[in-house]
């Protein structure tokens, strides 16, 4: 448990380092553009409009951001359904670009997982929905559309559990360890809700296809527990730890459906308009 938490934090740290790196490399580029264009642009553009409308090669391409819906699937859950006989699951992911940096994001999924612990074996079945937003902290060059984001989700799951077998913990071994007992007890109508902090990235591999992954840190806000058992696994939330925390991740492939384009207002044009 402690080790898991440690590695969670360190990987978060690692992700934040990625952010930091991204910022550093971007910052100088931006400055260069401004320094290079402003002094040249203002006087030159007005005088030479008739003869040579476009002298400065830097400003010529009109930068447009594409807006639309991105839909896809979590490859991890999908592939795990094939190689892990105790797991069937699928997660569909989607986001919609709200403005330059914000995306409305959602995940919807269904899981059927049998957990075989040292002392318990149980099957969890259920569906979940996560809704929230992503903030893209990555400043793209030209028409690149990569995303390094941090976001929040509200997750809700409705599920049921079935206890398959269990062991009695008995410190006294006079009668020996008895084999696991078969239960078959079902716990229906369970629900849970939680908040997720999502750190993720998406890269455009070609045309409108993106691959991405995200790391999630969850905290339960509501958990309807069964009588004489516990929600040890919650679809969408994953394994529960003491103290209501959880972790998750996904590895997605998504298709971007462009709907409209918006011209990016470059900082230099803003300044000339004002004057």
């Amino acid at each position: 448990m402690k080790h898991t938490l440690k590695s969670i934090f360190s990987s978060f740290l690692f992700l934040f380092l990625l952010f930091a790196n991204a910022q550093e490399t971007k910052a100088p580029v931006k400055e260069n553009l401004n320094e290079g264009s402003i002094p040249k642009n203002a006087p030159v553009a007005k005088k030479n409009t008739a003869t040579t409308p476009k002298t400065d090669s830097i400003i010529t391409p009109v930068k447009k951001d594409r807006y639309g819906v991105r839909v896809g699937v979590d490859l991890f859950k999908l592939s795990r359904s094939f190689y892990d006989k105790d797991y069937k699951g699928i997660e569909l992911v989607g986001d919609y670009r709200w403005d330059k940096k914000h995306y409305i994001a959602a995940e919807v999924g269904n899981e059927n997982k049998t957990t075989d612990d040292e002392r318990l074996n149980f099957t969890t079945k259920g569906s979940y929905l996560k809704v929230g937003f992503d903030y893209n902290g990555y400043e793209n060059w030209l028409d690149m559309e990569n995303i390094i984001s941090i976001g929040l989700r509200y997750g809700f799951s409705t599920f049921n559990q079935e206890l398959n077998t269990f062991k009695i913990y008995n410190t006294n071994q006079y009668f020996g360890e008895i084999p696991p007992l078969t239960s078959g007890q079902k716990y229906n109508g369970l629900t849970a809700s939680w908040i997720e902090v999502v750190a993720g990235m998406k890269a455009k591999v070609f045309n409108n296809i993106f691959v991405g992954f995200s790391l999630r840190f969850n905290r339960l806000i509501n958990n309807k527990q069964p009588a004489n058992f516990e929600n040890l696994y919650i679809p969408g939330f994953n394994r529960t730890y003491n103290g209501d925390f959880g972790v998750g991740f996904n590895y997605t492939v998504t298709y971007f459906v462009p709907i409209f384009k918006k011209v990016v207002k470059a900082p230099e044009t803003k300044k000339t308009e004002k004057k």
Partner: protein
Amino acid sequence: MISCLSFSGCEKDDICDANTVTTPRLVITFYDYNNASVEKNVTNLSIFADGMEEAVTFSGSTLINGSTVSIPLKVNAETTKFHFILNYGSTNVIVPANEDIITFNYTTENIYVSRACGFKTNYTLKSDNPFVHTDAATPDLKWMQYVAVKNSLIANENETHLEIYF
């Protein structure tokens, strides 16, 4: 990315804490039959469950010489039969070994504890016949004069469940 994948590997690291209250034993306290409020020490008492070769170990010994002992009940049955042999292995004719048999009748309840511990079993001694006290197969007179249930619910080891006066 590799670090993410490695999380799935560290799931079974929880171990059941030794301080957790799990399946309890039946706690017996011995009293002086002639002075019922005073606890009395037994001498070299050995307790064998029916069919077992070894006696119950209590406080690291199979020979009990205190005024209290805790014995396990079978979690997967509703009766457990014990042979209580006082002065076990005695060759002294003045204080010979003496065997009494008590069969406990109870119901069990499996209660969830945690992921690491699994379940525990609590017992309730049946109210109509919580136990049957008989002499040994080869009668040697009962050494227990009076046996009484103190607490019929066996959920922890902090209290006496059965009192034996001798």
